[in-house]
């Protein structure tokens, strides 16, 4: 039996090698409870492979190497897994911390940075070998380590991240990997829970849970420090309960407008990035979690925290109005647009499905099976700052 199996796997691997494969239209779907990743083809709507034994993926995110061959998966349990999309296999896997939340790939593609809760800090690895290059504990005094959130890459071979417990934003310059240069911005606001960077890599914005508004850092003018925007937007006494923290990393910038989830208020906020004033607050049915712009910026798609997590709303950017409410199924956790945005893939956890929509007609195209999917990430992210 064993012989037959090994013969079979030999033949299969031969087949993989024999069949030419490009990776520009591939993607990764995370299966949270199985601790597995599906490699999918976004053009053919097909599952190509399932890679198992990736640890606790109850919260996970993915970045891609700039040649789009490898996907790096950041798991909840501190696992960092490098998947080979050409050969359908796990290339390397390390456990780099006890508890982690996300990661980023550097501008030149050579470094992978991971943001950790335990021990609080950022670790930087070689994207080729996953060897440790820099260890940056998020020490904010007396040896206390803060959980790190909102880690993104920025131009100038930098990473930017926020310290949840400390209320700080740090930039990490890795131009000389042997000599990381850290710049710290203190008192940026209480409990930053996540952050985004504008697609041009200029503005870093951290959402605050502990007080009103968001913290803005202009990376072209770091000397000006961190500014508070929309400081009075949600008053403490009118704050609604938040059953899932919003995510900001799927940026939603459309023209001059930035779309962000309000926290503790059932609204999507539209901010004009010329003056950082509120343009409009669009009412939505629940606490928004992901607020993501279609790549052409014409639509913004929104999903919600429980108990409203069966819905998706599509906002038309042309007049900042609701275009349609979709009901994909139970527990809509994440979505990802194809590179030019004609389709969107939606992870519906409790229905064990991926639902693919035509973003023009808003009609469902097809459904694919996936076990408790909680994230969809396409290799086109490889060439986008902040993703």
């Amino acid at each position, binding site marked *: 039996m064993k012989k037959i199996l090994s013969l079979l796997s030999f033949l299969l691997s031969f087949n993989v090698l024999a069949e030419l494969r490009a990776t520009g239209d591939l993607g990764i779907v995370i299966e949270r409870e199985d601790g597995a990743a599906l490699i999918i083809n976004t053009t053919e709507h097909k599952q190509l492979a399932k890679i198992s034994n990736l640890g606790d993926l*109850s*919260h996970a995110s993915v970045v891609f190497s700039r040649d789009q061959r490898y996907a790096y998966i950041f798991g909840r349990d501190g696992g960092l897994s490098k998947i080979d999309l050409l050969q359908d296999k796990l290339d390397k896997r390390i456990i780099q911390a006890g*508890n982690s939340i996300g990661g980023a790939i550097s501008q030149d593609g050579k470094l992978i940075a991971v943001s950790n*809760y335990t021990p609080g800090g950022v670790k930087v690895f070689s994207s080729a070998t996953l060897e440790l290059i820099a260890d940056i504990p998020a020490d904010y005094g007396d040896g206390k380590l803060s959980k790190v959130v909102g880690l993104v890459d920025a131009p100038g071979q930098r990473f930017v991240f926020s310290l949840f417990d400390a209320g700080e934003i740090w930039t990490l310059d890795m131009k000389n990997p042997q000599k990381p240069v850290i710049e710290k911005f203190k008192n940026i606001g209480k409990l930053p829970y996540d952050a985004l960077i504008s697609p041009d890599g200029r503005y870093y914005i951290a959402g605050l*849970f502990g007080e009103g508004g968001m913290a803005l850092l202009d990376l072209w003018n770091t000397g000006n420090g961190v500014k508070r925007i929309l400081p009075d937007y949600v008053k403490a006494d009118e704050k609604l309960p938040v059953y899932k923290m919003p995510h900001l990393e799927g940026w939603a910038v459309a023209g001059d407008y930035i779309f962000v989830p309000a926290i503790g208020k059932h609204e999507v906020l539209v901010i004009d990035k010329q003056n950082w004033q509120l343009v409009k607050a669009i009412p939505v049915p629940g606490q928004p979690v992901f607020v993501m712009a279609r790549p052409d910026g014409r639509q913004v798609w929104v999903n919600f925290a*429980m*108990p409203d997590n069966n819905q998706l709303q599509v906002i038309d950017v042309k007049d900042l109005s609701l275009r349609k409410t979709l009901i994909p199924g139970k527990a809509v956790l994440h979505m990802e647009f194809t590179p030019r945005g004609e389709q969107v893939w939606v992870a519906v956890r409790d229905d064990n499905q991926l639902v693919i929509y035509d973003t023009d007609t808003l009609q469902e195209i097809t459904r694919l099976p996936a076990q408790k999917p909680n994230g969809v990430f396409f290799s086109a992210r490889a060439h986008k700052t902040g993703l």
Partner: protein
Amino acid sequence: MIFFIRVRKSIFGLLLLLILSGSMQTVLAVEPSPERQVALRHLLKNDCGACHGLTLQGGMGPALLPDNLNGKPDEFLVATILNGRKGTAMPPWQPFMNHDEALWLIGVLRKSVH
């Protein structure tokens, strides 16, 4: 009729609670129905798990393993679950469960072998 039975059940549970309180950590209040137990476990894994981790080893929120709960009285934990905790990201779960269900969940957590 059903209402009557429920009332009797909860009186029975209350008596049991009075008899057993002090001698047991996890009080045998009215057990949720099997369907509710499934729903509550689902909520624990997915919604509590969003912050406390699928394996309850912590995330943005603290770990909820038996060792972490040791020394914290049931009623303190019930209050935390139902009312949330001000100044933190812990929201009130009152809309989604009642007192006895929160108590039952704490029992599950105290025994969890994740």
